[in-house]
């Protein structure tokens, strides 16, 4: 079909997704953006957040970790460290990770070496929880 867009989501562990879709929304570091076929070619970094794509009118959600997205008119390649589909997320584990990160953060000051990492872990856990709700 003419208005189809090829989407590839690749992590170090595996090729998570590779198929034609209609639209994808990506959490870029400079803000969330949507891509349709014919989008201007560009390259951007991806932040922790929610990614979703529409295929056959159906939305699918992923929780993603930092990485990059390369967009050309007909293809989007997303290279990220982790990607989890919403129905594959272990909610209990995410909730536990969130509590853990929150309590650890409570004992830290901003100067701590671990601070940034813990904060990233917290953001990740919160994202996973919110993505898991959307099936």
């Amino acid at each position, binding site marked *: 079909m003419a208005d189809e867009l090829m989407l590839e989501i690749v992590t170090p*562990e595996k090729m998570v997704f590779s198929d034609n879709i209609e639209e994808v929304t990506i959490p870029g570091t400079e803000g969330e953006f949507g891509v349709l076929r014919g989008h*201007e070619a560009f390259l951007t970094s991806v932040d922790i957040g929610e990614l979703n794509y529409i295929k056959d009118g159906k939305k699918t959600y992923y929780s993603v970790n930092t990485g990059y997205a390369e967009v050309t008119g007909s293809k989007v*390649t997303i290279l990220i460290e982790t990607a989890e589909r919403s129905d594959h997320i272990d909610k209990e584990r995410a909730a536990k990770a969130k509590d853990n990160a929150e309590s650890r953060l409570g004992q830290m000051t901003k100067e701590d070496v671990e601070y940034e990492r813990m904060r990233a872990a917290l953001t990740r856990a919160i994202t996973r929880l919110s993505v898991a709700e959307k099936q």
Partner: protein
Amino acid sequence: MASLKDIKRKVVGVAKTKQITRAMNMVAASKFKSAQLKMEDFRPYAGKFMDVLNSLALRVDTNTHPLLAVRDPKKIRVICMTSDRGLCGGFNTNLIKATDRFLKDKTAEGKDISLICVGRKGRDFYRKKANVIAQKVDILSKFDMTLSVAIADEVIPSFIKEEYDELYLIYNQFVNVSVQKPTVVRLFPLPSIGQDVDVDADKRLDYSYEPSEEVLLHKLLPMYVHVLVYRALLETSAGENGARMAAMDNATSNCEELISSLTLKMNKARQAAITAELMDIVGGTEALAKG
């Protein structure tokens, strides 16, 4: 000559060893399979990543990045990547030999050397012999990208702070199940990227960048280090299990040989004992008959 009982005991012992080596061979085989799968799964990521990196490097003056800074190499840091566990033939020995040779050369040139050991075997070997500044042990049985991120986090800031001038990674390159080749790779300063690359027309598209090219490249280069280290880890893990498979296969067949030669010896000893006993009896009856 060893007594019948002694030989019997030995046979039983060797048979037990054989059981263990065979079990280890099977365990290594299954681990090898999963390590190999992991390697295959990583390939698309690495390939795509290089595509992106190269297309970016073509557009940006890459020499400005601190990870590419070439300095007079006085202080050298080496990552020595071995396995955590032994019983895998010459896997670690060969790597340590190669590392030793490398260190010797560099020491002869008057360089100041510090080591980072990944894997228990290398750590144990160098603990008292060299200046080991960091170590990661007991990690190879289960690892993912976060491990290579942790290693990279250890080396990147200190290189930028000029605590050392060159970083080398020594690991066993995976050639096939029975061949692993100790390899030395220079990580920092990163060999320039984007050169000698034949980029196809698709990649030469006029991209717009968000954020700017420089900022992106600054984010991408550390990831490039993650990719390189992760690949080395994968190859080490596959190589280790491949080497162990081969070593344990050898050990099992050696045990079989030993068992058969011991059994032969045992049967001979038993026969000799029977013969001796018979002679005694015959001698006894003859003496009685005479008397």
